[in-house]
């Protein structure tokens, strides 16, 4: 029992500490690829600490949703993060939920974020909320189909079982079902984390914003919580992608020397995925908004093909 608490605490610490690092790494890699120097890898940490010390300005027309959303988003994302296998194949809260719980917890956070965008009464918030809901309405089925594909292969929707089933079979990744599911989930990762073909995370033009438009009215500690939660969501989705399909280096438990090896493998895999994301961001331009459903339709078709392939291939 106490081991569970320690595991939870360790994974919680890892989630909180690693998320801004991943964001900073992606920004730095992108800057280097564009022959800039970038703001530095630890800049997101500095931003979060700065925001916690600042004062807040809350619109008068905002209701309790505006105040509740940062907490809901933060805690639901952390809860989802505790249910995925990061270092050990055994997720700390794995008994409480599997793949579906993760998807729905992230969906809960997104729901509240969209509501808070509408809550302030500003037009940009409503714009961001409607765009975010359009994209997620198309991306979630694709994500679910891809997750169900790996779940069928593992015989359960528990992420521990999914990661465990893929350990030890090196050629498994080359099966068409796994490849289609990986491609679908990668496209959904780009849509959900708001990366360049879908949404520019560094834009300052409100008309092009999707995620930032929803959080435009937040400031101070609330903004720190929401931004931290966004980085944690990115880390959760990236870890989900790499550990469902390539669980090399997943240790049996958190305890012992193996945990350090597991953390090392996790960092290496995250670095690899970050490089891929940065390459994709640098090579592509942001898609026009009415083209995003086309990309997500391809993701959806790939996901359904993946699901069908497990039966027919």
């Amino acid at each position, binding site marked *: 029992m106490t081991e569970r608490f320690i595991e939870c605490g360790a994974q919680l610490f890892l989630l909180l500490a690693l998320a801004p690092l991943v964001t900073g790494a992606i920004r730095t890699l992108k800057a280097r690829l564009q022959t800039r120097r970038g703001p530095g890898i630890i800049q997101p940490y500095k931003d979060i600490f700065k925001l916690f010390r600042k004062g807040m300005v809350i619109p008068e027309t905002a209701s309790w949703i505006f105040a509740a959303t940062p907490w809901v988003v933060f805690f639901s994302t952390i809860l989802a993060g505790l249910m995925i296998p990061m270092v050990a194949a055994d997720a700390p809260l794995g008994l409480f939920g599997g793949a579906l719980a993760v998807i729905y917890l992230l969906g809960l956070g997104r729901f509240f974020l969209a509501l808070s965008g509408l809550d302030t009464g500003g037009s940009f918030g409503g714009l961001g909320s409607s765009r975010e809901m359009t994209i997620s309405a198309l991306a979630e089925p694709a994500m679910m189909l891809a997750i169900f594909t790996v779940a069928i292969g593992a015989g359960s929707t528990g992420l521990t079982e999914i990661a465990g089933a893929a350990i030890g079979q090196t*050629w498994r990744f*080359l*099966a*068409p079902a796994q*490849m*289609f599911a990986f*491609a679908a989930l990668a496209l959904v990762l780009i849509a959900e984390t708001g990366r360049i073909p879908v949404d520019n995370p560094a834009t300052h033009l409100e008309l092009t914003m999707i995620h930032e438009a929803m959080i435009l009215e937040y400031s101070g500690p609330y903004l720190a919580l929401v931004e931290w939660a966004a980085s944690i969501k990115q880390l959760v989705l990236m870890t989900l992608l790499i550990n469902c399909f390539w669980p090399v280096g997943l240790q049996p438990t958190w305890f012992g020397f193996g945990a350090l090896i597991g953390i090392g493998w996790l960092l290496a895999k995250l670095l690899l995925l970050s490089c891929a994301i940065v390459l994709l961001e640098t090579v592509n331009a942001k898609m026009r908004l009415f083209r995003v*459903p*086309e990309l*997500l*339709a*391809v993701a*959806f*078709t*790939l996901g*359904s*093909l993946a699901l*069908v*392939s497990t039966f*027919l*291939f």
Partner: protein
Amino acid sequence: MQFGERIVTLMAALVLVLQIAVVAQRWIVTHIRIFAIQSFFLAMIAATIAWFNHAPHIYAAAGLTLVVKVILVPIFLERLVVRMDIREEIKPIVNVPLSVVISGGLTLLGYLVAESFHKPDEPGLGHNELAVAISLFLIGFFTMINRRKALTQVLALLSLENGLFLAAISLTYGMPLIVELGILFDVLVAAMVLGILVYRIRETFESMDVSRLRRLRG
């Protein structure tokens, strides 16, 4: 043999993904290049089958596909596009997300049809590649109906022919070499005749839109 089958199944899956990507394309040049990559993978599939089954006559089919469909036809078509100065996007009749989902449905249909060919005890590649081939065929047909301009319709016809090639390779280790030669020569000549015809159509009607050809009536 197990390894060879896996590699071939992997490449067949890639070919299928490329075909679905073609349905979502808006630029003709990208369409041509994806067709070239798809034909390259088909040639690789043929070469892998020839390697693992010690059937050297398939190398000839693979080589012919490589020369004609990966190099000659795409270069010719790209030159045609440059010469005709085509700058517009491909505007399909059914919008892109729906046509992508329809292609997914057609793939499912192809899988179901190929199931009835599945004989686990028979040696040979099995029904995976046949499923992909039938899906390529169906999606090629659908893409051909879905396009307005003659050039894009013929590109879809070419990918349909790719599906035929894959079906032949997967069922019977290729057709007789004479038939292969005939088909590939057909493809080359079709592309060239298209080049001349499309130019003429554009000159006469100021557009490649084939629905304009009906104005000859009345």
